[in-house]
């Protein structure tokens, strides 16, 4: 779909490829690292590269949220848990599975990649004119194009999200706390 924005400057295209390739290389390094902390750091790199891609594709707000929520909050929680459980050192005998599992995983990966490629080769009929989003952002600012639908068409989903987050908070606290002596005694009886 190179006809979407026909006058893209070469510099833009070059940077797009650079960040995409950085994301993929960092993801490969993430999957192959033995130490969980190193893996988490490479995943953060992937997320930063993705944020750059979002910003280049007229999704500046999503790019900022990506850095704040994913790289800033979710990955910090992961690192907290790695340190809390003292799993920072490269793990024991074999973190990756045996040769058979690796072959199975490679086969599934290749098959899946081929399928996704076949699906994305299909012709896409744009429903908005080229460059529409960029012009909208220029006119109303970065956040308004996302905030409008979020609080009108998708208001119900937005409200349900708050219930989801409440359930997640309660679940995390209940699952993560230690059992008290009283409860242990009640179970023993």
């Amino acid at each position, binding site marked *: 779909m190179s006809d979407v924005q026909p006058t893209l400057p070469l510099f833009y295209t070059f940077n797009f490829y650079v960040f995409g390739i950085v994301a993929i290389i960092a993801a490969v390094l993430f999957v192959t690292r033995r130490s969980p902390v190193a893996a988490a750091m490479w995943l953060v790199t992937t997320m930063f590269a993705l944020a750059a891609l979002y910003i280049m594709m007229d999704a500046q707000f999503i790019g900022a949220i990506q850095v704040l929520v994913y790289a800033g909050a979710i990955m910090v929680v992961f690192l907290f848990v790695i340190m809390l459980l003292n799993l920072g050192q490269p793990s024991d005998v074999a973190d990756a599975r045996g040769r058979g599992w690796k072959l199975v995983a490679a086969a599934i990966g290749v098959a899946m990649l081929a399928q996704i490629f076949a699906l994305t080769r299909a012709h896409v009929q744009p429903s908005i004119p080229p460059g529409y989003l960029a012009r909208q952002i220029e006119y109303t600012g970065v956040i308004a194009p996302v905030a409008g639908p979020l609080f009108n068409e998708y208001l119900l989903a937005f409200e349900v999200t708050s219930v989801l987050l409440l359930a997640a908070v309660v679940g995390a606290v209940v*699952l*993560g706390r230690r059992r008290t002596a009283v409860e242990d005694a009640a179970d023993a009886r």
Partner: protein
Amino acid sequence: MLAEALFFSAVLFTIGVVGVLTRRNAIIVFMCVELMLNAVNLSFVAFSQVYGVAGQVFVFFVMTVAAAEAAVGLAIIIALFRHRQTVNLQNINLLKG
């Protein structure tokens, strides 16, 4: 840019799937799931260029679900670690026949 973004998205998703299948560390498996969510977000943002801004709103919701999932999932991993002193999925086989 759409085709390139979908290419990157497909490759990242596949890397995440292969990671889930080959790693035994529960935390890294979990991070691979996050990578898959990120790959899907990338294609949402790419499609939002040709189909309108709804794709970006979906990314917003996906991120919320991912945050909730990370909180609950990591709490489960902590609870599991207290019981079994390990996060190696090979050793967590209580339900195995």
